[in-house]
Structure formats: C-alpha cells, structure tokens
C-alpha cells in the first residue's frame, strides 16, 4: 500500500482515480479521551466510506478537534484506535499517515518560513522527489493565489492565507483521505470558492474528505454524509438525508443536541 501511494503521490496532486469501493476509507474504533474529570471524546465509532465528503458537526466544545487529533495520530487516545484504508494509525503509522492529508492548525506551521519554503520543507519531509516538490509547490501557490506572497513569511500571512497554505500542506503529497478541521474559517468568499473547487475535484477523483464545521449550510451544500457530535459522543450519523430526516440540517442539529432554540436576548437591553 505504501509503495502504491508513494508512486501515486508523485504522479499528481489529486487523489487518484480509484473508484469508490464501499469499503471504509477511515474508521474510528471506540476512540476515547479524558482530560482529568472531563471526558472530551467518549467511545466514538465511525465509518467513513471511501469517496465520501463526510461532515463532522457539533457545537463548540463538543470534542471535534480532539477527536480528529486522535484519529490522525496527533493525540494518543486513552482507548480505541483509528484505521486509514485498513492501516492502524498507531500500529502501522507509515502506511496510515502516507494516506492521510491533515489540514494543520495555524499554530502548527513554522512561522518564519515563506509559503514556498514551507511546502518544500513538507514535501521533502515526506520523502518526495525534489523536482516533484518544486512543481507541486508552484502549482499549489498559483491555484491558491499565494504566488504574490511568496517572499512573505507565514507569520505575516492573513488568517485566510494561512488557511490556504495549510490546505496546500495537506495536499502536497497526494493523500487519499483529507482531514480538515474548520477549513473555511476566516476565508474570504473568493478563496472559499477556490477551496471548494479543489475539494470537489479531490472527491470526484476518488478521494475521501472528513471535515468538521459548525456552519450547517456549508455542510449541507458540500457533504453527502454527516455525523453529529455532542459532548464527546456521536448522537447521529449517516447520509445527509438520513440525519436531516426531512428537516433542515440546522433544525435537525438543534433537535439532536437538545439546544433551546428560543431566541433569548439580554435583560439590560430593554432598560
């Protein structure tokens, strides 16, 4: 699997042309994490089909980031594990992490490298050929409209530019599964359209995307599968239509997490 992926990774930025097989691309098997008294993630089991655009939604503090961090091997779970195309993230790291493309948070990026230096660094770190890294770096910077900022270090990027360069970091090695935590946060509409186009292209060529968000209209417009996380537990999962059950995703979400939808205001506004 590693050999196959490495070869593909050097052929194109896209996810390849694998047809959806129905086998899960990404599986979470009882992932659990406690921080002292708080159970941030509680026995989460999910199966993300190959070729799906999978949305993970939940209110702030539901445990989305902790869950994704465990799933990709950044935080060690107390219990459970995750598998990427059958490879265990903790036992078969090389195979699993080669298949994964993870959108790094802004703080993960070395702050004093320029965009092209960062992409070159990540590409070489992943053992890619220097010529391929150079070609892909140029293509990614061009498509993401970052070429003009090539001599600017990442710390001086705007929030939206950091999001875009982070996406480039996740894509450069040609992963088969993309994991994106809030990829559209603070991104302007034009850049958002570019990112959407890239992500749709990724899925249409057989790639799988798992992305978290709490913007329901965005999830509805992009995803074909959804899981709702509340207080560290999956309260609903399935295709978008199954989870919505005839309602808008917003309404379904509010019902599932038991939110009070009454529109309260502040007492001193009237005074």
């Amino acid at each position, binding site marked *: 699997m590693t050999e196959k992926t490495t070869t593909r990774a050097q052929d194109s930025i896209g996810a390849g042309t694998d047809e959806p097989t129905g086998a899960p691309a990404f599986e979470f098997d009882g992932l659990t994490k406690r921080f002292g008294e708080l159970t941030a993630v509680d026995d989460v089991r999910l199966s993300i089909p190959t070729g799906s655009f999978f949305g993970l939604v939940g209110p702030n503090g539901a445990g989305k980031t902790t869950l994704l961090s465990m799933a*990709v*091997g*950044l*935080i*060690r779970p107390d219990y459970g594990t995750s598998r990427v195309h059958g490879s265990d993230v903790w036992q078969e*790291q*090389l*195979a*699993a*992490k*080669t298949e*994964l493309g*993870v959108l*790094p*948070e802004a*703080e*993960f*990026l*070395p*702050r*004093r*490298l*320029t965009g*092209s*230096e960062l992409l*070159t*660094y*990540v*590409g*070489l*770190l*992943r*053992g890619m050929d*220097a010529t391929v*890294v150079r070609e892909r770096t140029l293509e990614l910077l061009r498509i993401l409209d970052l070429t003009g900022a*090539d*001599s*600017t*270090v990442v*710390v*001086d*990027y*705007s929030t939206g530019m950091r999001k875009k360069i982070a996406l480039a*970091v996740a894509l450069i090695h040609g992963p088969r599964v993309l994991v994106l935590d809030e990829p559209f946060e603070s991104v302007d509409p034009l850049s958002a359209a570019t990112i959407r186009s890239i992500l749709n292209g990724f899925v249409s060529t057989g790639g799988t995307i798992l992305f978290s968000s709490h913007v329901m209209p965005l999830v509805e417009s992009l995803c074909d599968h959804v899981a709702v996380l509340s207080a560290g537990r999956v309260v609903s999962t399935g295709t978008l239509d199954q989870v919505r059950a005839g309602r808008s995703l917003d309404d379904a979400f509010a019902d599932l997490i038991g939110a009070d939808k009454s529109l309260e205001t502040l007492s001193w506004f009237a005074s």
Partner: protein
Amino acid sequence: MVRILIAMRATALGNARHSRFGILSLVAAVVVGLATASSTLWLGFTAAGGASGGADQLALVMLTWTAGRIGFAAFSGGDPGIALDLFRIIPVPRRRLARSLLVLGLVDPAMPFLAIAFSSLVAFGFRHGPIAGLVGIVGAGALLLLVGILSTIVAALVPTGSRRRQDLGALLAAALISAVVVAGTLVGPLLATLAAGSTPALSLILRVLPTGWAGDAIAAASLGQPGAAALLVAALLAANALCAAIWPQVLGARLVAEAGSGRHAHARASARILPATVTGAVTSREVRLWIRDPNRAGFLIIALVVGLGGCLVPLITHGAAQLLPFAGLGTALIAAAVAGNSYGFDGPALGLTLTVAGAERHDVRGRQLAWFIVVGPYAILLSIAGLLVSEQNWAWPWVLAMLPALLGGGVGVFPLISLLAVQPLDDNGSPGPTWVVKAYATIVAVAISAAPPIALLVIGIVSRLAPLTWIAVPVGVLTGVCCAVVLGRIAGNLLARRGPEVFQILAGAVAGR
C-alpha cells in the same frame, strides 16, 4: 482597579499549566534568587569600611540588579498575566489605568528579591550611624520604587506594531541582556578595585548614575554632610516623580500604537545548499529559524556575546589572557543551553512533523545539524583566534581536546533535554524565568561530555607525559561524536515514542492561553 488587576494576574498565574519540571525549576529559581539577594544584603554588612569605597561597591551591585531587572522586562515584554492590549478597547481613564499598572508593577514577584538586595543600603547606612541608616532606608525605598516604575515603563516600550519593529525590539533586548550578563562577571574583580579606590573614573560614573545616589547619600550623611545627603535623596525621589509623570504618556502611546500591517517582513529566496533529503529539509528549516525567529536569534546573540565576553573580562580587568582561548568553548556551552528549549520555541509546530510517519528521528538529526552549522564554525574560529591572539601555547591541547567534546556534547544534549523538560513559551513568547534552571542543567550536562579528554589532560600534566595530553585530542573528538550520535538517537527514539505527549504539552499551552 488595582485589586482587579492583581486578581486577574493571580488567576492567570494560577491557571498556568505547570509541569513537574516547571515547578522544580520555579523552586530552584526562587532559591537562587534568594541566595543572590542575600549575598547582596551581606555586602551591606561587609562592604569596605570607608564610606566612600563601600558606597561605590554598593552602587555597582545596585546598577547590576537594576540593569538585570530592566533587561528582563525588555526581553520578556512585561507581565504575561496582564493583557495590556485589552485596554485598547476598554475605556478606563488613562491616568487611572496608569496609576493602577504602576502599583501592579510594584507588587511584582521580583520585588521581594530586589527589596532584600536593596536592604544592603540600609545595613550599610546603620554601620555609619543612625542618621546614615535613616538615609539608607529612604534611599533604598526610593531606588526600589524607581526600579519598579522603570521596569513597568520599559515593558510597555517593547515595540508593538509592525513585525519588523517587534523583531528589532527583541534583538535589542537580547543585546542588553548580553551586556548585563557580561558586566555581571565583572562585579567580583570590580568590587575589589572599588574598595581600594584605585579607579576614580569608574567611581565617578557609578555615583553619577541614579543607582549610585542612595549609596552616595549614605556616604555624605556619614561624613556629616546632611545637606548633600538630603539633596541626593531628594534627587532620587524627583526621578521617581518624573518617571511616574511620563508613564501615562508612554502608556497612551503604547495603547494607540499602530497595529502591524504585517506585510513588511520579506524573506529572500535562497538557493538550496543542503541536500534535498528529509534530514536536509529539517536542517534548512532550522537554520532559517535560528536566523529569522527573533526569539531564537535573540538567545543565540546572548550565547555568542556572553561566550566571548566572559573570557574577555579577565583580560580587561587583570590583563590576563589565559581564558581567551576558551571563548569558543564557552560559546558552545551557552549556545547548547539556549537551544535546550528547541521544541518549546516551536510550540505546536511539532504537530506538522507528527503527521508524517517516521519523521521524528529526522527532526532531531536536522535540529542537531542546524545547531552545529550555526554554532560550530563560530566556536571553532573563536577558539583558534583566541589561541593565536593570546599566545597561550599551553592551551592548544586543552582547546583542541575539549572543543569537539563540548560541541558534540551540545549537539547531543540539547534535543534530549528539550524533549525531557518541555517548556512552552508564554503569551509574550518567553519561556519564563524558570527556563534559567534548565539552561544551567544543560550547561552541566554538556560540560560532563568533556570529562574524558579533561581526565587525560590532567593525568598527562600531573604525570608530565606530554603525549598523553595530545591523545586527549582524538579522545575529545571521539567523545563528541559519540555524544552527538548516541544522545541524538535517544532523543529521536524518545520523540518517536512520546511525540503525541510532547505535542499535547505544547498544544495545550497554546489552547490554554
């Protein structure tokens, strides 16, 4: 208002996450601080008998304490528990806010140590009579107040706004710290010189500076010149009043400082020199960060300046050139100590490495290589220059044997210590005062790596076997290589095994802000 700010700081400090190492370091820092302050207080009882020489001695240590406190304020950028920029959007009257922040600066954790040290003026005064003692009390109090106000002002003056100004500020502060540390090594020999009264020019400079006014007032009081004593104390109080008066203006300027456009810092594209391998990629990243990251570059400046300065001091004070050949060795030691927080400097950027399977060992090797590229040539050239300039021919085997051992020891020890005692940076980008403890631990650990060649050198000299001293040279090289390879491998394995736990500490510090 003051109470709110004190509570806010106390809450922020209470909520800060402390590792076991952090707590131990804090205890060690308090012990070292108390010991240093007490030794200064002791000087008050033992300073030169003559009022004049003693006042000069105290003026020197007061200057060192003051410069150290202000240098730290400049380098750390103020109190991490107080978000000064929050007051940009909260309309607290500026004078009220200024007054509150001044009081807050006076209840700073450093103040008790300064108070103990400055009490040496009181002890010194009472040795020369009750009037001089009273002058000592007022003088010490006024000086303490002045240092508290000045450190608050300096912390607010740390540049905000554009990234370039911030970077420049960090580098200037690093240069100031370096100067203070080098000057600190001068204190011992200078105290003897001042007691003897053999350097009138230096005495004059020390007394002209405000840090010398309190001692000078005590000397005047003991010589039966109450008018002069009162004038000097009044001058010190006036300096306080002046600083307190300009503080609201400084604060006002700080709170309306322009937000950084952030588009001024440009990095020149450079041709790839290092190989396009995984380790080469990490090495390139690290070399760039040592140069571009003002935090790292600041610490590196301190290492390069202090390593050289520490060996120049005996030459300046006593005309002794014996230590000059060892400047490169000192630099290697201190540079290893500053790199001992390598992973802490980068914070959660480690996450990027952990998303790549098997990258951990390359990350450690790349960091080691980059440190050697940045520090090695400087230390080697400095050693050779020191040997040639000082003409200390006896030192050749010592330097040639110890330098490779220390460089290799530094290469091996710093990533390991950085992973064993992870210290994330605080909101101001500072590893915090407890970092000093880790720095000293690193120095000791690196110094131990030179034990085998030193043992051979000593045996060679004691037994008068010159060839043995030269055998120490290959032994030193071998020791250095072994330290670099073996300790690097241990660090790489540690990162591969405990990467997620290290990451959790680093990411937790950011999330906890």
